[in-house]
């Protein structure tokens, strides 16, 4: 700023600055002196107050002194002085009224109280004065006058005695007066006592005179005398009380008030002194401050003068030097050289401005050069940016020559997407980039392009280098020459693979819902149905047209109460899904159980827009559950039967063995043999019952072998035919002879026998009783398997046993497979037939169905077919005992009775028998007779070491050992034995000796 001024202005500026500093000093001095003046006035004012306080204190002391003078001396002038001083004090306080304070208020109050007390004192004092100087004197005078009168009268009578008494009374009265006055003069209370004593004396003297009427002229007079004395005394006592009253006032009340005035005046003085000290310090401080300011201002002024001198000198030399330097630099083309900031409107200023113009010109030249450089750089960046944008655009771009359909240019994106390098793509025919699947569409699009110059949103597939394809959306524009001929295209492809996949996903989801077996309904937020799937219609009976727009409450059955639905809505409104089993109502009014799951569907902001309800019909599940429960029940029975079968069969084995031996021994006694046969029949009947139960519970011993089902049927029917009466027609209808199943012949025979027996019982009352057995091939496809639980896909041999009986009552149908369920009369049926059928068929992985009506019953057995295998011989063996050739058999069984009986039986049919009671003993025995033993028959379950393990160890000794098992029931599976590993024959106990003998021969034959 200073540098911009002209020299003359600088000098003026210097003077002006000094002048301003001087003015500031004057202003500060004025303000400071003004403060000092105010402080001085305040000081004077406080001095006046201090003087007033002093005056007040003096007046208080003086007023109390005057009050005491008045009190004790009775000088009226002193009382007047008190009033005058009171006036002065009031005036003093009024003068100091401008300086109000609590102390001043208290002083005023105490002065007022003081004067009130003094005025009372004056009254008391005057009253006392009057009492002493008038009333008391009058009373004394009256008393004396009365006596003087009597003395005069008595002197006339010359009664010296009475005169003497009167004189004494007078003397007493004088004493009273003397003591009374002394009291008032000295204020010594002892004179009160003396005075009172005087009054007593006088009274006594008068009383004494009163008793002598001759001496006192009349009683009335003495009474008057006593009254005078009493008045005298009362006046005295009142004067005493008045005296004490005013003494109390002046010495106690007034002195306390006076002291409080003095005390407060002193406090006020202290305050004033403190204020004055403060003012004094404040004044001194102000003056000190002023002095400091002046010194600082003078120094400042001196500095400014010096500074201005330097500035003016430098303002001339420094710019010239600076400008010289600047011009030198400018002449060399510099545009950065600093131009001295000398903007004054003088010659140096002109030079400065010229230098600035010079510099600006240099700068303009430089700027133009820089701009050219920048433009070049910018252009380069723009090109790079364009290439970058083009190459890295999210979409695929290419230019194709219209005439040749060759790729002229493409971006990196398309190259990357298709797996090419850019240079590989350029020059390629555009058609080569499309997938063959869409070539027709490509041709059509190209044709359209040639005709119109554009292609809009053509959905095509590009072919990647690896042959895979990309779903794209093609848009093409054209570049034409000035004649409108299309030169080349600008093609852009948008990769829509994700979109397509998403669409596919949606399609699948939609189909999943549509094809779901569970009923799906979608409602809006208000519960209005917007969508249902076919399963919904299937389960509920409502078509889509009927359901859309309805509320799901159309399904309400009334089986759920209001609280149920309140809880449901409460859950749903809270955003949670809800699930429960419900009983709904179909369109036709039927109720059906279902598991209903409802979920709220929320939009992005979390607001519920729809609800989706999924109903899973529980009818099939409930049926399955029932089936499951049935299976469990069956399993329990099986476990029970299995548990007793082993011991039971062992016992029966013992019985039947012994029966056989008994029969052999009693051959000569036909009656005995007959009875033993009956016992044997009953024993084997009991064994059959157990077998039935074991078969039902699938615990029995089965030996599954491939067999031709048609041959089996024929053989079995042959046997059955003979047991049926001729009146019953039994026919076999075989529709397919080429079917192999894997089965246990014994069980299947039993099955068929049971079914034929049941059919026979059913047709007893038929007019033309007929039983027909059909065999055909049955194909279980998907639909069948879905609808028939337990079936598997595949082919079955279906055996149907059809009768024309009275049918099974519907209420019995569900129970016919239960063990011990029978509708036959007592003793005719065990209730195990169909149960055994059921268990045996299951053992064979087959199925059994019953269709019954009033016209008859059809039982269908389906046994899975096997594709290969050699069918075993189904010929039924004769019931004949085959004797041995003296071979040695090692018989192993833990049941001693069985062991002994079997030993006897075997020895009876020409075998040599060794026995062992468990596996370990058997091994020892075998080792001892390894070369003698031809066959080992082992029980399966034994203590210490079971039959299976023992045989394994014996095989370790002799791998070619021949052996078979005899067991009460098949615990092998429960024992964890893999039946596949066992090749040995098994005979179940109790066994017929014929069967045993035949099996032994079979094994021995190898």
């Amino acid at each position, binding site marked *: 700023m200073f540098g911009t001024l002209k020299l003359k202005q600088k000098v003026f500026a210097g003077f002006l600055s000094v002048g301003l500093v001087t003015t500031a000093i004057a202003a500060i001095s004025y303000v400071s002196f003004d403060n000092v003046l105010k402080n001085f006035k305040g000081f004077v004012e406080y001095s006046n107050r201090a003087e007033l306080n002093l005056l007040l204190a003096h007046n208080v*002391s003086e007023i*109390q002194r005057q009050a*005491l003078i008045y009190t004790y001396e009775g000088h009226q002038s002193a009382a007047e002085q008190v009033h005058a001083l009171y006036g002065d004090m009031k005036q003093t306080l009024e003068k100091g009224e401008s300086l109000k304070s609590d102390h001043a208020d208290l002083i005023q109050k105490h002065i007022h*109280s003081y004067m*009130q*007390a003094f*005025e*009372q*004192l004056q*009254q*008391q004092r005057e*009253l006392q004065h009057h009492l002493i100087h008038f009333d008391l004197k009058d009373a004394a005078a009256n008393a004396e006058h009365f006596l003087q009168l009597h003395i005069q009268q008595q002197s006339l009578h010359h009664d010296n005695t009475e005169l003497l008494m009167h004189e004494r009374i007078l003397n007493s009265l004088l004493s009273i007066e003397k003591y009374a006055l002394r009291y008032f003069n000295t*204020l*010594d*209370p*002892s004179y*009160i006592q003396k005075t*009172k004593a005087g009054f*007593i004396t006088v009274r006594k003297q008068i009383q004494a005179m009163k008793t002598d009427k001759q001496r006192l002229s009349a009683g009335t007079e003495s009474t008057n005398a006593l009254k005078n004395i009493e008045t005298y*005394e*009362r006046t005295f*006592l*009142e004067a*005493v*009380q*008045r*005296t*004490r*009253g*005013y*003494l*109390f*006032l*002046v*010495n*106690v*009340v007034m*002195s*306390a008030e*006076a*002291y*409080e005035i*003095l*005390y407060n005046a002193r406090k006020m003085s202290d305050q004033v002194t403190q204020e004055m000290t403060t003012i004094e310090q404040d004044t001194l401080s102000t003056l000190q401050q002023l002095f400091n300011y002046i010194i600082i201002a003078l120094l400042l002024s001196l500095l400014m003068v010096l500074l201005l001198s330097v500035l003016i000198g430098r303002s001339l030399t420094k710019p010239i030097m600076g400008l010289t330097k600047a011009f030198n630099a400018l002449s060399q083309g510099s545009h950065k050289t600093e131009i001295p900031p000398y903007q004054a409107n003088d010659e140096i200023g002109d030079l400065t401005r010229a230098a600035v113009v010079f510099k600006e010109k240099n700068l303009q030249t430089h700027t133009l050069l820089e701009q050219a450089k920048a433009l070049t750089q910018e252009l380069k960046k723009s090109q790079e940016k364009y290439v970058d944008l083009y190459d890295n655009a999210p979409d695929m771009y290419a230019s194709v020559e219209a005439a040749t359909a060759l790729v002229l240019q493409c971006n990196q994106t398309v190259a990357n997407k298709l797996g090419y390098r850019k240079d590989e793509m350029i020059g390629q025919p555009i058609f080569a980039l499309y997938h063959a699947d869409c070539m027709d569409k490509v041709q059509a699009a190209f044709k359209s392009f040639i005709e119109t110059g554009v292609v809009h949103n053509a959905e095509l597939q590009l072919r990647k280098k690896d042959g895979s394809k990309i779903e794209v959306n093609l848009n093409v524009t054209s570049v034409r020459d000035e004649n409108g001929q299309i030169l080349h295209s600008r093609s852009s492809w948008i990769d829509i693979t994700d979109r397509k996949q998403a669409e596919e996903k949606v399609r699948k989801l939609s189909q999943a819902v549509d094809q779901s077996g569970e009923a799906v309904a979608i409602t809006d937020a208000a519960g209005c149905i917007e969508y249902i799937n076919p399963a919904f219609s299937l389960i509920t009976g409502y078509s889509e047209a009927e359901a859309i727009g309805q509320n799901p409450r159309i399904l309400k059955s009334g089986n759920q109460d209001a609280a149920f639905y309140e809880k449901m809505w409460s859950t749903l409104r809270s955003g949670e899904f809800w699930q429960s089993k419900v009983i709904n109502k179909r369109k036709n009014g039927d109720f059906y159980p279902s598991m209903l799951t409802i979920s709220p569907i929320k939009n992005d902001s979390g607001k519920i827009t729809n609800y989706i309800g999924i109903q899973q019909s529980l009818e099939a599940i409930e049926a399955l559950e029932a089936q499951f429960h049935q299976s469990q029940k069956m399993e329990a029975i099986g476990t029970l039967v299995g548990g007793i079968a082993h011991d039971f069969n062992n016992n029966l084995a013992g019985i039947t063995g012994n029966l056989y031996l008994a029969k052999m021994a009693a051959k000569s006694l036909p009656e005995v043999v007959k009875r033993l046969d009956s016992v044997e029949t009953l024993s084997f009947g009991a064994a059959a019952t157990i077998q039935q139960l074991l078969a039902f519970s699938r615990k029995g011993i089965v030996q599954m072998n491939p067999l031709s089902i048609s041959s089996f049927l024929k053989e079995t029917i042959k046997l059955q035919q003979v047991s049926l009466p001729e009146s019953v027609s039994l026919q076999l209808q075989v529709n397919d002879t080429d079917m192999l199943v894997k089965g246990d012949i014994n069980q299947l025979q039993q099955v068929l026998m049971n079914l034929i027996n049941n059919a026979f019982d059913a047709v007893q009352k038929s007019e033309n009783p007929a039983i027909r057995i059909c065999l055909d091939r049955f194909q279980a496809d998907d639909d069948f398997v879905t609808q028939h639980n337990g079936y598997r896909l595949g082919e079955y041999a279906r055996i149907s046993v059809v009768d024309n009986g009275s049918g099974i009552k519907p209420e019995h149908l569900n129970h016919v497979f239960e063990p011990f369920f029978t509708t036959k009369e007592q003793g005719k049926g065990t209730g195990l037939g169909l149960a055994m059928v059921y268990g045996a068929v299951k053992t064979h992985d087959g199925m059994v169905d019953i269709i019954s009506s009033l016209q008859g019953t059809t039982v269908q057995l389906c046994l899975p077919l096997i594709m290969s295998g050699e069918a075993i011989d189904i010929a039924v063996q004769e019931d004949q005992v085959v004797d041995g050739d003296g071979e040695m058999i090692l018989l192993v069984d833990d049941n001693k009775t069985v062991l002994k009986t079997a030993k006897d039986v075997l020895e009876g049919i020409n075998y040599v028998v060794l026995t062992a009671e468990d596996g370990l003993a058997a091994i020892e025995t075998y080792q001892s007779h390894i070369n003698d033993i031809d066959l080992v028959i082992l029980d399966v379950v034994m203590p210490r070491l079971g039959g299976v393990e023992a045989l394994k160890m014996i095989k370790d000794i002799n791998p070619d050992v021949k052996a078979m098992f005899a067991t009460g029931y098949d615990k092998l599976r429960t024992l964890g034995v893999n039946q596949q590993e066992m090749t040995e024959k098994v005979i179940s106990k109790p066994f017929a000796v014929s069967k045993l003998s035949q099996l032994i021969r079979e094994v021995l034959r190898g």
Partner: protein
Amino acid sequence: MKKKSESDLGRRDFLKTCGSMVVGAAATFAFPAIISARDSKPTIRVVGTHVTLQEALRQKAEKDLGINIEFYPGGSAEVLLKASTDPSSFDLYEQWSNSMNVLWQANAIQPISINKLTYWDEINGLTKTGRISPGAKIGLGDAPHKLLYAQADGSLGANPTGEISFLPYVHNTDSFGYNSAVIPKGIPYETESWGWLLDERYAGKVALVNEPTIGLFDAALAVKARGLMDFKDMGSMTRSELDELFKILVDYKKRGHFRGVWSSVPHSVELMRSGQVDIQSMFSPGVSALNGMGIPCIYAAPKEGYRAWHGVMCLSRESSGERQEAAYAFMNWWLSGWPGAFIARQGYYISNPERSRRFMSASEWDYWYDGKPASQALRGTDGKISVHPNEVRTGGSYIKRFENVAVWNTVMDSYEYSLLKWNEFVMA
């Protein structure tokens, strides 16, 4: 513990009103108002202070006795002057025993016949013999028994006769109070001492009551406790003893030891509340008021003993006939139990306490008379809670207090001279 006792400021207002008393007495001898007056029944006029002239008592007495009663309450000096100069203006006079000499001397009252006092035999030994218990010391000065009996020679004395000068009834003890926030709390009867009033540590913060017949004894007890002088008989100081006492006091005063004197209970409260004073002569209502303001003022139990006062009820010389009978009935009513229980709840004692006991709860008796902790909150005569559970009255039981009386409020023979010296002290 906060001391709970006398709540009535009336007795203590006398100093403030003594000035106006003189005016009233000198000007008209009439009283400002008649509180109650009825014509059909005998009417008695009772002059006294606010301590006992309470409206509740008057109404109860009227109801119980079937007479009209007019109360004329006023300041102590005022009523004393009134009674001593105009016996016809009242039937009964209720004040302090230190006014007895004046009244008796002024022939303002007539002897009371013991035969007419129903409960005379129940009055305890404090008034009759000067001792509350056999081992108790008799306080100096005008102990009430010295003024009780009307002697044959017309004087008053302790020698039992058939007539008494006053009916003994309400009485209590006084001491000094100190701000325990400033002065360390002392142990009652052990470390608390009148000598504290002259302790240099409290210089400038000490005040005395502005009443020579009371404050003089506070000062004398303090001087004696400090060992500065002794008295032949503190209850009857000679002029030379007064000279010596006031010489000491004036010396202290000039050295700035005393803030000054107080002339009313509110004045004493203000001095301690404002911090101008830390220790001073006090009346119990002032102590209660300060504690109510949150100032922890302790009413000391000085080891040297209390300064005690005794209320008197006197029969006017002019009372006779039907009015005299009614006056006797009123006197007997005062000792009939209920009034004693009533004033006990204000912290005052009655001369036949046992008769009042049946009108007090056990908890009240324990606290007010036995010096035991209050087992429950106690209500004052205004119906408000005045004593909180577990509070203990400072100074202990009634017996304990009156076994420790150092001096009785007394108008000494040197009264006039003491006034003069008092002035010197106050103005020093």
